[in-house]
C-alpha cells in the first residue's frame, strides 16, 4: 500500500511539469474537454433530474407535522443537492464513467508500447498523457456539477408540481430562503478535489499496467473502486474541515 502511494507520488511528480510544447498540450486539452467533459452531459443530466426529484419527494413525504411549512421541501432539496448530491453522487458516477475510460485508454497504450514509443520520441509520456486529463477534469467538472445542481433542483420542483405534493409557490419560496453562498463554494471545492482524485488515480493505475488486456481490464476496475473509495473518504475529511 505504501509502495503504491510512493509510486503514485513519483508519477505525479513527472506529471506536473511544464509541457514541452504548448500547442500540443492545448490540443490534447481540447480533446479531453470533449472526451471527459462534454460527453458526460447526458448521464449527468439524467442522474441529476432524478435524484433531485427523489430528494424532493422523500422530504415532502417525511414532513407530516403541520408546524413545518411545505416550503421546507424546496429548501431541503436545494441544500441536499448543493451540499451532497451533485458534488458527491455525480463525482462517483464520473469515477465510473471517466475513471475507467482514463485507465483503460492509458493502460492500452502501455501494453501496446505506445507509451514507450512516446518516450523514444522525446516525450515525457506521464506529462503528455495525464496532465491534460487532470487539467480538463478539474476545469470541466465544476461546469458539470453546476449544471447538475440546476437540473437537480429543477427535478425536485418538477416532481413536487407533478405529484401535487407541494405547490410551485411554496417550493420556490423555500428555494430562495436562507441561502448561504458558502455552500456553493464548498460544493466546488469538493468537485475539484474529486476531479483530481478521479483523473490522477485512474491515470496512475492505467500508466502502471504491466501485461496484457486482462491487466488493462483489471486496472480499469481498480480505477473505479479506488477513486470511489477515495472520494467518499475525502468527502468526510472536507466536510469536517469546511463545514464545521
Amino acid at each position, binding site marked *: 500500500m505504501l509502495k503504491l502511494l510512493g509510486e503514485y507520488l513519483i508519477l505525479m511528480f513527472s506529471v506536473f511539469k511544464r509541457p*514541452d*510544447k504548448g500547442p*500540443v498540450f492545448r490540443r490534447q486539452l481540447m*480533446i479531453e474537454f470533449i472526451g471527459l467533459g462534454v460527453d458526460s452531459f447526458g448521464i449527468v443530466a439524467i442522474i441529476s433530474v432524478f435524484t433531485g426529484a427523489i430528494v424532493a419527494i422523500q422530504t415532502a413525504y417525511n414532513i407530516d407535522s403541520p408546524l413545518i411549512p411545505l416550503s421546507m421541501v424546496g429548501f431541503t432539496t436545494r441544500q441536499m443537492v448543493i451540499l451532497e448530491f451533485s458534488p458527491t453522487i455525480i463525482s462517483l458516477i464520473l469515477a465510473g464513467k471517466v475513471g475507467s475510460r482514463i485507465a483503460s485508454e492509458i493502460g*492500452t*497504450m502501455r501494453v*501496446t*508500447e*505506445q507509451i*514507450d*514509443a512516446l*518516450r*523514444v*520520441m*522525446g*516525450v515525457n509520456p506521464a506529462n503528455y498523457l495525464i496532465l491534460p486529463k487532470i487539467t480538463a477534469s478539474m476545469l470541466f467538472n465544476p461546469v458539470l456539477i453546476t449544471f447538475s445542481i440546476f437540473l437537480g433542483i429543477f427535478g425536485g420542483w418538477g416532481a413536487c408540481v407533478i405529484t401535487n405534493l407541494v405547490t410551485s409557490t411554496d417550493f420556490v419560496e423555500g428555494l430562495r430562503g436562507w441561502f448561504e453562498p458558502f455552500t456553493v463554494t464548498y460544493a466546488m471545492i469538493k468537485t475539484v478535489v474529486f476531479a483530481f482524485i478521479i483523473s490522477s488515480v485512474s491515470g496512475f493505475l492505467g500508466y502502471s499496467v504491466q501485461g496484457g488486456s486482462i491487466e488493462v481490464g483489471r486496472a480499469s476496475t481498480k480505477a473505479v473502486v479506488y477513486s470511489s473509495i477515495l472520494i467518499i473518504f475525502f468527502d468526510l475529511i472536507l466536510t469536517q474541515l469546511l463545514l464545521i
Partner: protein
Amino acid sequence: MIHLNNIQKSFGDRLVLDDIDTCFEKGKTNLIIGQSGSGKTVLMKCCIGLIDPDAGEIVYDNRQFSNQSDRRKQDIRKEMGVLFQGGALFDSFTVEQNIMFPLNMFTSMSLEEKLDRVNFCLQRVNLVNVNKLFPSEISGGMMKRVAIARAISNNPRYLFCDEPNSGLDPKTAELIDALISEITEEYDITTVVNTHDMNSVLQIGQKITFLYNGKLWWEGDKNTILDTDNPELRDFVFSTELTRRIKR
C-alpha cells in the same frame, strides 16, 4: 556504429542480460536472434534507453548514451527511429499524424514541409492514399509499414526494429524485411533488428548476434550461420522442418 560494453540487466534475482559485449555496424542490418525469452527485447530497450542496464555502457558513435541525463539522451534520441513489435501506432491519430509526430517533437518544420516529408515516407514504404485513415482501419502489414514510415520520418541514423515481421504472412514478412534492409543501405544507417524468424536471418542477416539465455552465444553472418557447430545455435537454426530439409 553502436558499441555495447558489458551490458548486464537483472529483474529481481533473474539475470536477463549477462555481460553482453558487441557492436552494431553502420550501413548494415544487425540482427539479434534467439528464442522467445532470450532477452532480445530487453537488450533493444537498453539500447534505446527505455530500460537502464545495471552495468555496462552504450556508446553511439563515440557518444555516451547510458547513464546520461534525459536531456543528453534526447540529442541521440532525435537520431533514432524505433519500430516496436506491435507497431505501437497512436490509435487516436491518423496515419499522417502518426508519421508527423516525431517531426512535431524534434523539428521546427512548417506544416507544408512536414506534409511533404510524410508523403515521401509513405511512398518509401509503398503506401498511398492512407493519410487520413486511423490505425484501426488498416491491415497488420500496412500498420507495420506505417510504423516504419514513422520510424524513418526524422531521417534517423539508427533504426531499431523489434520483431518487424511477427504476425505477418510469409510474403508480407519478406517485403517488410526487404524494405528494412533497402532503407539501411540507401541511407547508410545503423539498423538493429530483433527476430526469431530464420527466413529473415537468411535474407537480411549481415551481422548476426545470437543470444542464449541472456548470454551472447555466437556472432557471425547469414553465410556462416548454416555451417555452425555451436550446438545451441544449431538447435535454434534447425528448429523448423524447412531448415532441416535445407540441411539434408
